[in-house]
């Protein structure tokens, strides 16, 4: 994912509160690879989501997104489907960890629920801010530079790969 994509308009998939890891990565599909799990992503809440979602789309949800189990696939499916970001007022703590480590951008936005399904929004990840179709700028909690780097790299594992195994001297100073 490049910063460029993040600045183009993103279609909103609007979901409710308490979207859990079982909705994102259904238990019955867990024995399969991530490509198969992705086909079942959110089938219980938005049956058309997995087939219609386009790379660059965003999920906008209510509070406590990603509650439930520690399964990493619940974040990996959204990366697999090309979701550019999740925007919600709050996340499960464990989901928050897993998402960034797998390269999924989570924006914590108090006013997320003012956005509507199907709308096109812009993201400025440097501030970060969500710009609604009407031009309203919804502030998000800051995401440290090293986590944005992890998102751009496609997760911790890719980042370690790119680094060729040697520690990044910049990392600590980025905080």
């Amino acid at each position, binding site marked *: 994912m490049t910063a460029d994509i993040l600045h183009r308009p993103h279609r909103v998939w609007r979901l409710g509160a308490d979207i859990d890891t079982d909705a994102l990565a259904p238990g019955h599909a867990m024995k399969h690879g991530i490509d198969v799990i992705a086909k079942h992503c959110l089938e219980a809440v938005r049956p058309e989501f997995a087939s219609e979602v386009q790379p660059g789309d965003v999920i906008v949800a209510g509070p406590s997104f990603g*509650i439930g189990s*520690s399964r*990493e696939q619940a974040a990996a499916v959204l990366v697999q489907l090309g979701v550019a970001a999740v925007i919600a007022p709050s996340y*499960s*703590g*464990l989901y*928050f*960890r*897993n998402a*960034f*480590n797998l390269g999924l951008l989570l924006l914590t936005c108090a006013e997320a629920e003012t956005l509507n399904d199907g709308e096109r929004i812009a993201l400025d990840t440097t501030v970060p801010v969500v710009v609604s179709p009407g031009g309203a700028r919804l502030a998000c*909690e800051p*995401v*440290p530079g*090293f*986590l944005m780097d992890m998102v751009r790299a496609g997760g*911790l*594992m890719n980042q*370690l*790969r790119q*680094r*060729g*195994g*040697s*520690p*990044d001297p910049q*990392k*600590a100073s*980025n*905080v």
Partner: protein
Amino acid sequence: MTFNVPGRALAQTLAQKLIARASGRAQVAVGEIVTCGVDMAMFHDSSGPRRLQPMLEELGAQIWDRSRVVLVMDHYVPERDDDSRRIVRIARDWAREQQLPHVYDSQGICHVVVPQHGHIRPGMLCVGGDSHSPTGGAFGAYMFGIGSTEMLGVMVTGEIWLRVPETIRMWWDGALPAGVTAKDMMLHMIGRFGMNGGRYQAVEFAGPAVAALSMQERMTLSNMSAELGAQAGLIAPDATTAAFLAQAGAPPVDMAPWFTDEGAALTHHRFDAATLEPYVAAPHSPANAHGVSRYLGTHVDVAYIGACTGAKLDDLRAAAQVLRGHKVAAGIRLIVAPASLHDQERAREEGVLQVLMDAGAELFPTACGACSGYGDPMGDGITVISTTARNFKGRMGSPTAQVYLGSPYTVAAAALRGCVTDPREVLA
């Protein structure tokens, strides 16, 4: 960035102070994301080498600091089949190849063995490749569990990122009555708040009833913070901590900085230890917990005293107090799998082990064993009462087994009578 104005420093929780130190800050704010240096990383035969070795090789990377790595073989020992032999062999070969200085092979369960060798000390930030890693919080260290990819990151960089947690303080007034333990406190809290009650924040156990607990009882509290859904389960260190660490041969540490400031922002829950009764969690969740009176008379087939949660020296002593001079009920199996060799030997010296054997206990290896369904899984359709931390369906082997959780007193009392029993009746 928070500025530390002399004389006007913001009140901080113990969790904030530990994370601030590890991230090289004067203070950190709740919700802030910081990178921390890791003081100690622990993993076992199941979570460690067999996953880390291929990934490290792919990266061509070296371990950042071998002196800060501790490897414990506890999940697949003693080896009983080809799979376990292979997994343990990978761990042993890798330990030799990497010349790891701290390896504990078949010495006991990681969460008990690692602190018993002084590797977890107040003020440290530690990670563990196991979900019960919050156990280390009993020593005033910030310790939490991570997956294998994150552990790889730690192995390569020596760092990990964290979102500074809120603190949920569990304050226990009063004193525990005889026959009531840290395990009962935990089952009570998990029953009340549920398995997500900790919201992946830091739980801190405090108050006179916590201060009065032995080090091993405190470890039981922190251990089951995992079942409370917390990232960490902290207890401020004190003289009890210092005495335990001195015995473990740890270098002396300054305990003074590691406490929650008065006035620090936190969620506070208050409990009365004096009125707590023994607790039992019924199948199939630790949150399905109620006072023992609700389950009195439930028939059991197996009483299991094992795991990092419930087979430390203090747990064995508690069981012996119930069983001294008695025999287990006819047809009941009592299995004892001490949490570490160290504790097993101490129990032997004290005569505690003999009391248990005389009562009819079968002694199992000092390893995870049946706790995670390995080795001698419980049979189909049987009812087990266990000192372990989890009773999910199938956890101890068979999906048709019914597993109840209780303290070592409660489990020993059930062994004696052949059914769920209030241990206070037997102790009286």
